[in-house]
């Protein structure tokens, strides 16, 4: 990447959005006030989590869901200001043009890759795509494909799995058509019918059938039903609600939650084997006074009751572990409240008394 490209990437980053919902995560980008992404990134939900370099995790509203062209538009409740807003390219895309893809592959946020247009127009079904060779992976979906003028030429949409850099982006002219059609309706909550391609106002849909052509609209059904956790997941979320944690903002997947209490991070994971672990990485092992730290942790373990200290790799954790079948609202609330109270207190104590360095959080998850 040359200096000009690096500068371009730097200016573009502020428009890149990370999108998360209980079923997965992806990328998006700002065009004007709207966040553009793929329909499959929002998973048929009306609300998803959005975040940018300047906007911390916020609930965004999916106001347009278009499974026909795999597009979705999200409205942010807070205006995201960009010094160098992205523009849609109107120049024709040619084979061999340089391209840059930006997104969050596997959650590795703001990853940039470059390549060339391998084939400017490739038809899949009824839709044309740009084929390119910049490496993209799961999590890149919905991110922008840029030309060397930092203009959007496409929306990164899919790859051929197990291939070598066969990426496909929805061209910006398709996106522009969709944006124009959407803006003329001057309303929100729009779904595009996968069959007749008409834009349908969600409130006019009956029993999930397209009022124009009668096709069953899967997206309408999903939006109507929303995300409804059940069983132990619902119980965990209920307990978090009791403890005044914003469940929607903390949800990382259907079985994983993360939030900060001041400077202390709490992670809750519900594993397939039925074990629920709520823990907080408090600090790393210091270079001096280590055995005293161990003695302290082991000694505290004898009085902590529901919680326990442990070490994994080089990090000290405070954890609450329980098997799903044993989790009750009463017991779980007491134990998690204790974790939320004790984790920040112990973190401060360990850092001050044992000069333990603050934890470092792995980005590879």
């Amino acid at each position: 990447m040359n200096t000009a490209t690096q500068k371009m990437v730097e200016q573009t980053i502020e428009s890149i959005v990370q999108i998360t919902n209980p079923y997965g995560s992806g990328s998006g980008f700002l065009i004007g006030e709207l966040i553009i992404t793929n329909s499959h990134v929002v998973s048929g939900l009306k609300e998803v989590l959005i975040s940018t370099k300047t906007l911390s995790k916020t609930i965004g509203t999916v106001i347009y869901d278009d499974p026909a062209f795999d597009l979705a538009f999200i409205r942010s409740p807070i205006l995201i200001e960009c010094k160098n807003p992205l523009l849609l390219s109107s120049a024709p895309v040619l084979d061999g043009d340089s391209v840059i893809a930006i997104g969050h592959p596997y959650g590795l946020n703001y990853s940039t890759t470059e390549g060339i247009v391998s084939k400017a127009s490739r038809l899949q079904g009824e839709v044309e795509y740009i084929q390119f060779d910049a490496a993209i992976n799961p999590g890149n979906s919905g991110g922008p494909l840029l030309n060397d003028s930092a203009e959007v030429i496409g929306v990164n949409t899919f790859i051929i799995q197990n291939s070598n850099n066969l990426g496909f982006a929805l061209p910006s002219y398709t996106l522009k058509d969709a944006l124009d059609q959407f803006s003329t309706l001057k309303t929100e909550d729009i779904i595009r019918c996968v069959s007749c391609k008409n834009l349908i106002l969600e409130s006019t849909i009956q029993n999930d059938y397209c009022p124009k052509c009668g096709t069953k609209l899967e997206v309408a059904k999903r939006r109507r039903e929303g995300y409804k956790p059940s069983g132990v997941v619902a119980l965990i979320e209920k307990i978090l609600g009791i403890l005044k944690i914003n469940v929607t903002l903390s949800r990382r997947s259907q079985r994983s939650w993360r939030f900060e209490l001041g400077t202390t991070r709490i992670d809750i994971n519900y594993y397939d084997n039925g074990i629920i672990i709520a823990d907080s990485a408090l600090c790393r092992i210091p270079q001096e006074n280590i055995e005293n730290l161990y003695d302290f942790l082991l000694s505290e373990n004898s009085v902590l009751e529901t919680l326990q200290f442990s070490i994994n790799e080089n990090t000290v954790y405070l954890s609450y572990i329980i098997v799903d079948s044993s989790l009750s609202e009463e017991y779980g609330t007491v134990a998690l409240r204790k974790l939320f109270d004790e984790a920040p207190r112990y973190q401060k104590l360990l850092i001050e008394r044992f000069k333990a360095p603050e934890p470092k959080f792995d980005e590879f998850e």
Partner: protein
Amino acid sequence: MRWFNTLKSWFNPAPMHCAPLYGRGIHALPNPDEKELFERSSAAFIDGDILSGYEYFLSSLIHKENLFPTPHLSIERSEETLRFSLYQGYALIKGSVSEKSLEAHADIALSEQLHVAIKRRFLERDFQLTYCRFSEDKGTIRLSICLDNATITPQKVFYPLREIALNADFEKEFIAGEFDESALLDTHHLISIPREKIEINYAFMRQWIQETEQSLIGLLSNDNTGMTSFSYLALLLQIDYLLLPHKKMAKNISEKINGYFMDDEKLTEDKNADLEQYLRELSAMDIESFSTQFYNCAYTFSPFEQAMHDEISTFIEESLGKVRWYKNNRSTYVISVIYRYISLYILYNYGLHPSLRSLLHLHVEIYASDFFKAAGEIPLYDPLTRTFKQNLIAQRIRESIEPYISRYKGLSDFSEHLNYSDLDHFSQSFYLQVKNLDYTEV
């Protein structure tokens, strides 16, 4: 008719199935009323009779036989509480149950005398354990669990109790193997092995090592790495199964065997060299050091999850395939080694149904008849005359299988289908029969 049945039972006594006293795990058969007691425990918990639920559950863990001076699990119930203690190898677990909770702990070691590495290890184990945790209280390192009885079931007692028992034993063994064991607590229940038995075991170990070394002389290392591996591994498995060492020796044997299978980067020649080196160390060990590695103790929980018979069948099938390969390549030496290896490997690696464990032990016993003769047993095979005690072998097979015939679909006495013409033919026919047993419940 009743008179006739009584007379018949005199001539054909009911088979007496006993658990082998060798190998890792419990040297006793499970409680014959295990299932019924477990169900009664479940019913009592549902009725809210918590203490009875625990009493039935703990009773279900008590083995059929007890070879030790004190019971491996004791239960003491009063009106409001139930106390219990159980032995698991090196560990003693003490527990107390009230209507509200169960609390149990194992005192591991004195904190003051522990190396920093052990403290670190305990804290790392805390990250991995599900139910129990290491802590320090008044100078004692303790492994403990606390269960809330609000939604208790027998299953919810079983897994935590097993976790604390297995880990307390394992960690004490680890300390004894790696550091000074004098810091360990609750060790009075360990039973020392008589000197005479130690001497016999020591002599056998050295004899087996020497015999293995002799058998490998003349084998070109490049052509026979597989054969050499089978010889060394079968020998280590045999030492572990028959002599049952503890502490450092058990740890080293485990590391050597697991290292062989898990290290994909090392050449087989290098792995064999490691095994050979370790066997030399064992051979050079003096009897005093050797004697410190042994004790006898009771176990409440098996360290193994019971394996599906399909897994065992597949392993036997693959191993017999290797036998065929060596036969076709005229490497006859290794064939009997593989036959010996198969049963030892299964006994070392899998949790087995009591009948299968007895059958595979029978195979080990036939191959190590001189060892069992020295232990006061009737040898089942005479290596000089190459003859089998066919009646005894048939009886042992019957005893292993008949108590379970009504419970499983495909179990039948196969002693008539064995080929007694020589050891190799016997093993081939024996494994084919074992492979085809069916443990599907009726």
